[in-house]
Every structure is written in C-alpha cells, then in structure tokens.
C-alpha cells in the first residue's frame, strides 16, 4: 500500500534540521534582543501572546470556518480571571495551577455560550453577532463596578500578582546559576512553552477525527450532517477550544502586565487578531504564527525606525509613528489582499480553494 504511506506525509530530515535550528534561535533569542534593549523582549513577549490568540482564533475561523469578530472577549475573560483571583482587589492570591485551568475553563464556557445562539448563523450574520458579544463583554467589564464592585470598572485592576511557581517569581530579576535573568526574559520562556503547547494541540487537532469534522463543516454543512457529524457539538467545540486558548493568553497578559483594564479588549484588538489570521494564512498553523509575529512586531519596529529617521532627515518629528502605523498597516493589508488573498503562508487547502474560485470566475 504505497499510496497509503503518501497520504500521511512523513517529516523529511530537512524539516527536522529546520526545527532544531529554529529551536536554537528561540532559546537564545531574549539574550540577543536584550543586547539591543530590554523593551524588545517585552515586544517579543507580546508577540507570543498574540501568537496564542491568533492560534485560538484560527481554530474557529481557519479550521471550522466560523467568522468570529468578538474573539478578544475570551482574552478579556482570561485576563480578568487572573486579575480578580491574584490581586489585592479581592485580597485573593491563588496559585497559578488554580487560576490557569480556571481561566482556560471559563473562557471555554464563554466560547460555548457565544456559540450556542450562533449555531444557525453563517458568514456576515455570525460576524455581527460575535462582534456584539465581544462588545457586551467589554461593556460588562467596564460597568461591573456598581452596585457591587467586581471588575473595578474603567480604572481596571492593578497590582496583579506575577506568575509564580513556588518561590520562583517570573516578574522579578534574579541570579540563576550565575546568570542574571530579568523578568521579561523569564516570561519569554514561559510564554514560549505555552505557545509550543498550543501549537502542538492545534496541529494534532487539525489532523484528527475532530479536525476533519471541522473541515467538513467548513466545506459543506449539509453534507457533513448527512455523514453523521453532529454539527452543533462540533461547532461548539470549535468555539470552546478557540476561546480557551484566548483565556490562557489573557491570564498570561494579566500576570505579565500587572494591570488590566477594559480598554485592552476593544473591537480593534479583535480585528487585529483576525488580521493576523487572515494575513498569515487561515487554517495553516505556521502561516498564522507568521501573521501574528509580523503584525505585532512590525509596529514596534516602525516606532523604533520612524522617529529617529525623521529626526535625522528633517531635524523634527513630522509624522507621528502611531498615525503612520495604521496607514502602513492598512496599505499592507490591501496589498496582501490583492496579491496574496490566500495569505502569506496559506494552507494547501486554502490555496486550492482560491485558485479554483479564480478559475471559476
């Protein structure tokens, strides 16, 4: 059965070599960046959080084909779970092994709750409902300071505990085996670990019975039903799985920042994460990672380049980097949509689909 073997693509040695090289680079990356400036490590950490978010959203949008514009709500749920259970706000300081699973589960439940009323909706209608859901969560966070103060309203919650394993606190600089290691550097490894776990989970789900069921729903829901796929449960599962990764990312965000407020979970954030997924290549894990890294690091690069560049050229800052950022961002998106509508690094499936659509047109 030679044909069978070719169905399950084996990993060629070239790929293994690549994995080892990438691993080595990832392992020493914070120290390299640390030489340029500590702020770059923080940028990198945020990039990793965005990678987690994009991977989570990719489960919903890329695998199951359900357009979700309120995804950031689950990030918010995770962040507030950590903030409320590990800060002076309620005087609770629970350990990570309680909060992290709780953030995971509560975000998943929120995901299923969002999914339940959306089961019969598709495309534009689904997008509008999820968008509304995202806003509802943000508005709740913003207003749940009265009559009972739960979220501390627009002021947000501050002095949040850092991630701590026993006596090992991730937020603090300390000497370790003769090395001086800073908080952001420690967080980098923690985030990298969680990201890799999420990547592995996503990749394994994609090539499983569940992943195939998601693909089936994406391709043709009626045929999927006729094949005995319980589309309701499988869709809810996609919403819940995607949301749970967002919850984990939110927990990490809160613990790393030490401060959360509702404005971190606005619609623009949802759209930014969706852009990462679409730009990188829906449904393709490496593509989504690439998209998240590009879109989260690029603005910081721009900030670092634009101001000094203008100062040397004109002796003054004429264009605000924030303003240019959105301009270039929009321009880049338009270019990608024109020249690579399937994303920068698309899955084989998406490429085929768009090529076929072009031929059909």
């Amino acid at each position, binding site marked *: 059965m030679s*044909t069978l073997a070719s*169905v399950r693509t084996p990993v060629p040695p070239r790929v293994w070599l690549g994995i080892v090289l990438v691993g080595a680079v990832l392992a020493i990356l914070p120290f390299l960046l640390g030489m340029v400036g500590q702020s770059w490590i923080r940028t990198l950490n945020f990039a990793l959080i965005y990678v987690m978010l994009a991977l989570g959203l990719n489960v919903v949008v890329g695998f199951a084909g359900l357009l979700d514009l309120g995804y950031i709500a689950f990030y918010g749920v995770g962040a507030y779970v950590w903030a409320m259970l590990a800060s002076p706000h309620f005087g609770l300081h629970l350990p990570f092994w309680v909060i992290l699973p709780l953030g995971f589960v509560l975000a998943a439940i929120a995901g299923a709750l969002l999914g339940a009323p959306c089961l019969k909706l598709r495309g534009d209608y689904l997008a509008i409902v999820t968008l509304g859901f995202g806003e509802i969560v943000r508005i709740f966070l913003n207003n749940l300071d009265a009559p009972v103060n739960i979220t501390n309203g627009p002021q947000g919650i501050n002095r949040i505990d850092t991630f701590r394993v026993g006596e090992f606190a991730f937020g603090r600089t300390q000497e370790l085996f003769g090395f001086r290691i800073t908080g952001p550097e420690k967080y980098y490894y923690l985030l990298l670990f969680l990201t890799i776990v999420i990547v592995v989970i996503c990749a394994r*789900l994609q090539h499983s019975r*569940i992943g195939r069921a998601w*693909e089936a729903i994406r391709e043709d829901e009626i045929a999927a039903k006729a*094949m005995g796929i319980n589309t309701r449960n499988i869709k809810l599962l996609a919403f819940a799985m995607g949301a749970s990764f967002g919850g984990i990312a939110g927990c990490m965000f809160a613990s790393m920042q030490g401060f959360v407020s509702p404005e971190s979970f606005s619609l623009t954030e949802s759209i930014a994460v969706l852009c990462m997924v679409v730009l990188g290549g829906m449904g393709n894990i490496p593509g989504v990672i690439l998209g998240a890294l590009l879109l989260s690091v690029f603005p910081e690069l721009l900030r670092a380049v634009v101001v000094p560049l203008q100062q040397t050229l004109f002796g003054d800052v004429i264009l605000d980097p924030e303003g240019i950022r959105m301009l270039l961002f929009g321009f880049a998106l338009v270019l990608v949509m024109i020249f690579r509508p399937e994303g920068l690094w698309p899955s084989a499936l998406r490429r085929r689909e768009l090529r*076929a659509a072009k031929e059909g047109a």
Partner: protein
Amino acid sequence: MSAIPVHRDQGAMPELLLVVNRISKRFGGLQALSDVSFGICKGDIYGLIGPNGAGKTTLFNVLTSLYQPEMGTANFMGHQLTRLKPHEIAQVGIARTFQNIRLFANLSAIENVMIGRHVRTRAGVLGAVLRNRATLEEERAIEQRAYELLEYVGIADRANDIARSLSYGDQRRLEIARALATEPTLLALDEPAAGMNPSETVVLRQLIEKIRNDGVTVLLIEHDMKLVMGLCNRVLVLEYGRVLAEGKPSEVQRDPRVIEAYLGKGAAGQAGAAVAAPASDIAARQSTGASHSNQGRHDS
C-alpha cells in the same frame, strides 16, 4: 387515500427494513408529497422514479430528516426517522448521496471518505491531543478503511487528488464511497448516473449490484430508465407528489397510469402498443418527454 400495502409475492417473507407510511410534505402552496407510502425490504434495489418535480428528492430529504413532513411516519429498523436529527440518520444506518454532488470539494478523495468514518469512530479532543495508542490505531484503521473503499468503487489511484479535480463520474463514485464509509444498512443514491456517459453507467450499475450483494440495501432515484428497469427489483413511481404505481419493474412498465404520466394521454389510449414497448423505448422518450410533463404541470 391509496395507502399502498406492502406485499411481496416471494415465498419467504423478507425482512422489512423501511416502512414509509402516508408521508405528506408541503412547501407553501406546493404539495410536494401527499400520502406517500411504501416499504423497502432487506436486499432490495428499490427504484424511485417519476418526472422532474414529482417529489423524489423531497422524499429523500424527508427520509434523511433534512425536511420535516407535516404528516406520516417512516420507520427504519425500529427508529422513527422523522423524529431523528439529520446527523442521527447516518448513525442508525442510512447514508445518502446528493443529486448535485456535495463532496468536500477542496479536500482530497481519501479525506472525503475518512470524514465518512466519523460516525463509526470515537476519538475526541483528548485522544487527538494525547495521541494515545487507541487513537493512533483508530486513525490508522480509518485511513485503511477509506483506502479500501476507494478501491471498492474503483478510484484508489485518485486517493490523494482533490475531490474537485476528479471527473464527474469519479466524483459520483467518491460520493458513494464516502456514504459507504458510514457503514449503512440502507444506501440512498440520488441520481447517481446523472451526467455519466454510457460506459460509466455500466460500471456504476455493476458497482450498485456489488454493493447490494455485499448486504447493503439500495434506494435509487434515477432518470435513466434502462438502468432502473434493469437493476431494481422494485420500483415506486411518483407523480405530483403522489404514488402512481408500485411494484416489480415489469408490472410498473405496463401500468397504464405510468405510461400516461411518461408518454401523455394519447399513448395511454394505445395501451396495447405501450405494453409491448420495451424499457429502452420508454427511457428514450422519457428523456425528451420530461420537459413536456413539466409543462403539463404548470398548465394544471
């Protein structure tokens, strides 16, 4: 109304698989099905024929729970089909294909069939993530079975090709393989020969016979009268959503009402000539007559 009694004239009483009793379905002002009753026995290749718009596909959709009928029941091996959800239909053992092929067009042929295994396998999220031995074995078995089914329908050499890129006939066969992957007791085929050339139709006919001989009962909607009359051991004729005739192909072919439906009133008057008309003749006229009978429908 004329509820058609389920009777068989064979000596031994064959096992009844599906009993449809007085199904009615209405779309707004259109009565798509009225009082349709019939029974399918184990081992049948049961043909469902009728002019365009007679309600054949509607009946399929009612049996597979895509539509809810206003009235009537359908009992399949003790299950009330009308009470089941669409995805439970495959669970109880009915698989179908679609008139306008509904493959997962961007997935490969083998992936399509592997999705068909969904309902007979178990692995959940935990198994997928942990990749424990049971899951890996199940996954291997799914792939193995999918490949075997592609061989069974004769398109194993296209296993890794995208469903969309297959020829029309191969897509039809892939749809059958995908349906068979759910291990059905009853396989419902909605115009499987549509768009096939004569040599493909011959292969299809052999395939359907093979499927029946391997223990799967077949329900067949088909316009190709030659195929139906040669293949089916039992035929139901629908017209305007009503049962016009039911019985052996040879009986149905002689039924004056059927001849009238297919060939028009004049032909029924010359019933004597029509009785002698061979099946292929009816088929030939049917393909040109279909549009006529449609027009007749609009007039009435």
